[in-house]
């Protein structure tokens, strides 16, 4: 009977709906990890629906320390996980992107590939091909360019102790540098992507600006930008592009710059901005914490901040998570559903992470949640789970 009903529904123009706003989906347990705040990066999803998770406790500056990278299969199962890197600089600093069955992240010392088919991690690039010295990744843009020739990404890197930075195109398949352009001595303040361009907010002797670049083509443009005076060394800030021409950069709490392609200027807002979200329509939203860690949101239109207020959807999701969320535990090849009283794993509202959450689906984000920590030898440990949630911006 069910096949017949489904057939009739389709013939009658039946459709499939995703998650409703503030609806909490089925969680999937990732594992148990140390730290009251176990990760700074929200989960990423590839085209096939595989989920990529990188853990790593943040230090005093908010920079994630080395953790574990895992892949959850679209139809179930998790990889065993592998280290994101070694030493104090081996923490995952950002996602680059994903194709159908592969995802990439970057640390301060390497570009790392996660293979969903095998669960393996592979260091794509960690040495300067010219000097053969260790690579310093100042920033990698959240952009993958998939062509018939391969998959490419863009990053600003330096080699060893040489302070000179280079803008490079990386062949993510082969792990080689396809092209390189010298930038001189620069600080990278923020990174983003939009309209097929990678964007890097840099500071050098001439001041601050946003450099636009495309794989293979190199630098394609520049946008004048007055950026907040922030120290480098922690998490690199984020840049986002709206379909209405708005551009926003968040370099840290209370350190934002807003504008258009004609230029960006520093700005301020009543709440502590954490990151910039981009909805399915292409509108930019500043999100952050207000009084009592209440999630806040403000639209950006025409290069200006408008309509700041409480983010009701984020609040509703937090309430639903704390009330109880069903989480599937897939250990041992089984599927056991349990109910967790959970909270956002980033220390604030589940939807307000230090990094922008890549879209999980239309109208949905995947958030990382944790159950109440347990003490093990003086170190708090929490179980982490990925939960898809319906998102609506005011």
């Amino acid at each position, binding site marked *: 009977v*069910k*096949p017949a009903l*489904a*057939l009739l529904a*389709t*013939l009658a123009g039946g*459709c*499939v*709906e*995703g*998650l409703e706003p503030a609806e909490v*989906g*089925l969680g*999937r347990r990732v594992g148990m990890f140390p730290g009251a705040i176990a990760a700074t990066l929200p989960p990423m*999803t590839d*085209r*096939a*629906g*595989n989920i990529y998770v990188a853990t790593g406790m943040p230090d005093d500056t908010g920079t994630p320390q080395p953790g574990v990278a895992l892949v959850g*299969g*679209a*139809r*179930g*199962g998790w990889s065993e996980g592998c280290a994101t890197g070694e030493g104090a600089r081996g923490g995952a600093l950002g996602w680059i992107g994903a*194709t159908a*069955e592969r995802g990439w992240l970057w640390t301060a010392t390497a570009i790392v590939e996660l293979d*969903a*088919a*095998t669960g393996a991690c592979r260091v794509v690039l960690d040495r300067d091909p010219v000097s053969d010295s260790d690579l310093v990744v100042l920033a990698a843009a959240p952009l993958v*360019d*998939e*062509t*018939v*020739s*391969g998959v490419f990404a863009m990053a600003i890197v330096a080699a060893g102790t040489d302070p000179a930075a280079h803008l490079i195109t990386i062949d993510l398949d082969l792990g080689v540098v*396809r092209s390189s352009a010298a930038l001189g001595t620069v600080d990278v303040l923020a990174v983003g992507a939009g309209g097929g361009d990678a964007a890097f907010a840099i500071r050098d002797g001439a001041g601050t600006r946003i450099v636009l670049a495309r794989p*293979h083509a190199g630098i394609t443009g520049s946008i004048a930008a007055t950026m907040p005076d922030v120290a480098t060394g922690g998490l690199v800030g984020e840049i986002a592009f709206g379909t209405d021409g708005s551009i926003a950069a968040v370099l840290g709490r209370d350190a934002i710059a807003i504008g258009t392609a004609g230029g960006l200027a520093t700005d301020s807002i009543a709440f502590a901005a954490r990151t910039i979200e981009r909805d399915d329509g292409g509108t930019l939203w500043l999100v952050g914490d207000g009084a009592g860690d209440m999630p806040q949101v403000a639209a950006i239109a025409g290069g200006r901040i408008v309509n700041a207020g409480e983010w009701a959807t984020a609040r509703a999701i937090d309430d639903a998570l704390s009330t109880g969320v069903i989480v*599937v535990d*897939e250990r*041992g*090849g*089984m*599927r056991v559903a349990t109910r967790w009283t959970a909270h956002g794993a980033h220390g604030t509202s589940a939807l307000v992470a230090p990094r922008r959450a890549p*879209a*999980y*689906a*239309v109208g*949905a984000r995947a958030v990382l949640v944790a159950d109440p920590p347990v003490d093990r030898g003086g170190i708090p440990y929490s179980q982490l789970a990925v939960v*898809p949630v319906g998102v609506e911006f005011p």
Partner: protein
Amino acid sequence: VTPAGRIALAVAVAVAVAVTTIAAAPASADRTKKRRAKHTPTSTSVRIVDLVGDSATATATATATSGTGTGTRTGTATTTGTATSTSTATGTATIDRVASAITETDAAADADAARSEYLVPELRAGSLQARLYGSLRPTIGVAHRETAVERDRWAYGFAGSRIDVGLDVDVGRGVTGSLYVQVAAGRDDVATAGTVDLERALVSYQPIDVLEISVGRDYVPMSAQSATPSEARVFPTRIAIDETFVLPADVGLQVTTSTSLLTAMVGAWNGVATDVMLEPGAEERGLLYSARIEATPLGKLAFDERTRPSSLRLGIGAGATYRAATAFTPTGAAGSRSRDLRAAAAVRVAWRGLFVQGEILRRQITDDLSMRPDVATGGYVQASWRFAAGAVDVAPLARAGIERVRALSAPATGGSLELGGAVFPFARGSDRLSIAALYAHLVDPILGASDEVRAQLRLGF
């Protein structure tokens, strides 16, 4: 008479007799209970009209008589690719029934015209009849991809070249078999091993005229694209967007009921794995069910882009497949469940050399774990118009399609536009030799745009 002439004569006579004998039944007047009841012709006569070189024309007349009436049918066949027949009926048969009989016989004549293309005649051994056919299809293509690196910016070669071989066997008493294999070349720009694809391996049983039961391997006939066999295409390839919606060849059982006005098919298939990756050691299982119904109010219209009916034919059809599958974990425990629903609705029009087909396609895959539906919608229109131009036939070809994939997860749009033509130089009305050339602008939802020109020579045997 040359040896080829003898073969041509045998083919012409066989086709004429077949056309006439089959046609005599519906022309019979006594069809009050079973409209397509067969009557063994009471008399059949054959006359050779023309025999020149390696071509021949033959006519045959068959008469079937039953209790209340008599039907007579006259058929003509030539080895240059035509077979026609006319009928008369006397007795209690109504005008409508005679008209219906003529329509049905036109369809039979169309099919027989196509059969007469083949150089290898039917092989007979007792009650067993076999027919071997196929084609050689060397193809050359040049593609340009602006976004590729230098190595891949231009791709050229003979990808798309293939050999296809088919074998139809009739063992009598309504039992038939069909086999169709394609051997294809590798990629354009890299020397790779070819592929061997068993598209069809079917055993069919037809207990009565309107019912056929088939078991074996075949394409699941969800859409008009997938219901049209490879050997029955005018375009060198399937339309690009079909890859999003088509199911691979599968093994199963299908029941078909068919009249001149309506064809309905239902099937149950093994259900091959979806393209969603499973964790190592996991396995997904679930039967696939298919259904397709098509109305042909003006008479039968085969899934054959080469068909050239003498009167207007129209096909309005819809099909769907449904598969509920369970992904079992490596330990054997039941894991996530998924539902794969695909549907299509098509309109096809054929009249003489004109063939137009439009179709809307949809795919929606959901599961109880990810809550991330995979929804795709697409559509295409294709047209070909074959007409005589001097001593040859020519056929302009045009096809355009668009698709929106992952509409609820990671939306992207793709499509294609193809323009070109085909020439049939061997003889007027013959499909034995054709050359098709197409320019295509393709937009892949992931890899972006490319342009290509592809030419295919097809030599049928």
